[in-house]
């Protein structure tokens, strides 16, 4: 028995106390947020959520997955063993051996952390994060020495050295949560997984926005404390890995948005302070140091510039990439709701569009009776209140766009060729209000939804079919909360079903150009539907050359979230970047499945691949041309 052992025991219990104290301190900040359901039993969900959901994301980067497994696994094992052997003052040599093993694992992991941080990619944060490999290694080395060297043999100098290393490592591990250091993520991350503000996402793809109570005293989020407490906790879980930053189309286009910085700004808001110390990439075009926040201060514009808020396309690429399962888009929409509903402060053409919606139920201010003018010669059945049909076709706002009318006509041709029993609402169709909702105008969204739900309840139909993923998403995922329950199908899914059952007879395409497929965010990431359009293209003999960012990880065309309306300038345009992606595959044709993507990608000037809807490609490959 040696006094060093007792010192370690003392250090252990001091560390436990510091951790508990720090966590309580941080929890005070979270609890300043608005109410949300709370149940301790949710802590039991953490292992599964960590091993399944977090791992699923982290595993995309095998290097860091391995690294984290070694460091965190080693550290947790070592700390547990130290708790046993030293915390309970057992001082067994056998346990010391086990501690050595865990420390070796952790040391190996620390080495990998060090390797990565020698030439860090730009998305990583520097600052305190750069000291992590050293403090972690110090902790591991301290434990290693403690376990390997019989304490009786240690000179006073060596013992002091070991204690110093352990002290440095322990300080890093337990003080982070109280002081906002890098290791804050360990505590906040675990609690965030347990009390996640969108817990449904662990059971299924969950992307619908929460309805806002329009009678609430505060509409949306003005100050950090207007966020629900578990949202604040979620911000604190961020590890500043910058995966969201690397995925963000607005950041890539040089617009003043960086989802990582956005989350860190929310952390500043909940804890107070200035962004001068931020050690990652700033918002493009906005220098660091000019913004600061506090829990009870309005977030705009002291902490966050309006341009940042309105640059987001709500593409959810950041959410898809975030290993800590943070919900950036929900936070952005909460902020937009306040700006729109309580301040009316929307940039660009957004206010005009919202006025149009309120007055004409179309985004462009069109005469609703003109919505189906493109189909005047197609003999479509227009359903009337009281009638019934199997498939109800909703064209959406794209119906007013002369380019997209070609796609819609192709879709109708396919439906007629497959003898589908379908009808349109014609002039009764009104906008879903989806874009209003992304812009934070929940009042207009709910009014539009109520109008459309009333129209739909006057007719009987089996399914709703639409070619617009935004209509699809809002009807399928967001209308149920407002009382509209429908079976909704995107045209690619519906057509894939028809083709599979043989009802739709497709031949081979005559298209010989190289083709790539651009996933609409609201079909792919929002609804997980990436296979149906590809299956259809395969069926007509297209061999797709996939872009690097495709499927669930596709890159936005720039058209979501009302971004074309708010039109925040950057150094380039998002659709230009996406067309460059397509060019890189050598494709001369980009297949699309959304009116928004069509408009954005076709808006790219200069020589570019042709942009054609999947329905148009299929219609041209119909076996028997009607």
């Amino acid at each position, binding site marked *: 028995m040696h006094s060093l052992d007792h010192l370690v025991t003392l250090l252990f219990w001091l560390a436990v106390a510091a951790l508990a104290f720090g966590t309580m301190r941080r929890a005070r900040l979270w609890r300043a947020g608005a109410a949300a359901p709370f149940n301790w039993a949710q802590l039991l969900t953490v292992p599964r959520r960590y091993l399944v959901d977090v791992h699923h994301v982290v595993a995309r980067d095998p290097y860091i997955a391995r690294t984290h497994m070694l460091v965190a696994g080693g550290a947790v094992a070592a700390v547990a063993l130290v708790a046993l052997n030293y915390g309970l003052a057992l001082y067994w040599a056998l346990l010391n051996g086990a501690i050595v093993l865990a420390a070796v694992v952790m040391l190996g992991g620390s080495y990998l952390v060090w390797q990565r941080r020698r030439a860090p990619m730009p998305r990583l944060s520097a600052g305190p994060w750069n000291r992590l490999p050293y403090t972690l290694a110090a902790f591991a080395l301290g434990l290693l020495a403690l376990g390997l060297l019989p304490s009786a043999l240690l000179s006073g100098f060596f013992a002091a050295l070991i204690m110093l290393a352990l002290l440095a490592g322990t300080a890093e591990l337990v003080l982070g949560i109280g002081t906002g250091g890098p290791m804050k993520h360990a505590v906040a991350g675990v609690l965030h997984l347990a009390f996640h503000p969108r817990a449904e996402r662990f059971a299924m793809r969950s992307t619908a926005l929460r309805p806002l109570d329009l009678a609430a005293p505060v509409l949306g989020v003005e100050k950090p404390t207007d966020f629900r407490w578990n949202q604040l906790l979620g911000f604190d879980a961020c590890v500043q890995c910058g995966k969201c930053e690397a995925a963000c189309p607005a950041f890539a286009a040089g617009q003043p948005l960086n989802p990582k910085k956005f989350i860190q700004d929310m952390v500043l808001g909940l804890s107070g302070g200035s962004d001068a110390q931020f050690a990652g990439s700033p918002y493009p075009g906005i220098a660091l140091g000019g913004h600061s926040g506090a829990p009870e201060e309005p977030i705009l514009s002291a902490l966050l510039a309006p341009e940042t808020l309105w640059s987001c396309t709500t593409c959810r690429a950041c959410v898809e990439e975030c290993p800590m399962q943070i919900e950036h888009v929900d936070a952005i929409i909460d902020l937009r709701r306040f700006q729109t*509903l309580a301040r009316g402060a929307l940039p660009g053409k957004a*206010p005009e569009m919202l006025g149009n919606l309120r007055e004409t139920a179309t985004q462009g201010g069109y005469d609703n009776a003109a919505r189906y003018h493109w189909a005047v010669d197609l003999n479509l059945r227009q359903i009337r209140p009281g009638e019934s049909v199997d498939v109800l076709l909703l064209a959406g706002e794209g119906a007013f766009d002369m380019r997209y009318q070609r796609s819609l006509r192709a879709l109708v041709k396919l439906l007629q060729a497959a003898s589908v029993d379908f009808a349109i609402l014609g002039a009764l169709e009104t906008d879903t209000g989806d874009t209003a909702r992304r812009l934070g105008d929940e009042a207009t969204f709910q009014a539009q939804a109520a109008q459309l739900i009333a129209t739909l309840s006057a007719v009987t139909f089996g399914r709703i079919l639409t070619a617009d993923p935004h209509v699809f998403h809002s009807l399928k995922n967001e209308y149920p909360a407002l009382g509209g329950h429908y079976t909704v199908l995107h045209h690619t899914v519906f057509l894939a079903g028809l083709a599979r059952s043989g009802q739709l007879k497709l031949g081979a395409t005559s298209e010989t150009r190289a083709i790539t497929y651009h996933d609409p965010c609201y079909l792919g990431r929002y609804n997980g539907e990436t296979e149906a359009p590809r299956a259809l293209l395969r069926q007509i003999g297209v061999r797709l050359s996939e872009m690097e960012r495709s499927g669930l990880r596709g890159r936005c065309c720039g058209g979501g979230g009302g971004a074309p309306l708010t039109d925040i300038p950057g150094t380039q345009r998002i659709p230009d970047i996406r067309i460059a992606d397509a060019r890189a595959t050598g494709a001369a044709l980009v297949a699309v499945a959304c009116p928004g993507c069509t408009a954005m990608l076709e808006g790219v000037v200069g020589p570019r691949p042709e942009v054609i809807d999947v329905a148009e490609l299929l219609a041209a490959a119909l076996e028997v041309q009607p």
Partner: protein
Amino acid sequence: MMPPQLKIAALVSVGRNPASGAPRAARNDVLALDAALGLAREVSVLHAGDAAPALHDYLAYGAASVEVLPLPPGADALAPLAGRVAGYDLILCGQRAEAGQGSGMLAYRLAKALNMPVVSAALEISLLGDEVEIVQFLPKGQRRVVRVSLPAVIALHPLAPRNPRYVYASRRAGRLLSAPAQVGAPLPASPWQSEPAVKKPQKLKPPETRQGHARLLGAIATESKGGALVREGSAAEKARAILDYLRANRLIGF
């Protein structure tokens, strides 16, 4: 500076969306309301007619309340309005209603009834002691600054450079107030017929100066038909380039 107790009234009507015909806040009256709110914290917002739901839009645009002076349909709004705003320092309204007769006469008739000066086509209004200075719209990009003494009636031009904000929260907070019913005189019968307006945009085209062969070649060429691409410079310089082009081609006359 004017004392804060300046009494300002904004007169608002129910407009209609040109595409759908849906009732709404008349755009021009929204500008008048917004201008009034820019001059004083408290503004009496008055509407002669029904307590139509579309009036709630004015609440969203910043009116704390809209006072409705009930009026049978087809009755003349002049008498009730003139009675209500007597004693006000400044009465603002849109230049022309979007629905009904839309004769644009209200401001003039009101000023005559109240024996006040009237200024129409106002773009900007600023208070200077017991006078107001008004930047007035004139055709062809010209502007005129006029001053009138208070009290006065001012009609806002539809192109007044204002940026009214539609705020749901203030719509929710505001109220429609009903004044006791008035018996208005019927409007003089209108000799007019109504038919849908047709908007005919005019395209400005530079006169053709090329000779036959060049024109034929131009018809099959895909490259630019002339003109210049201005990328550099400030917005003012770019605007200058456009103005120069329009002038050089005699597309505008000033």
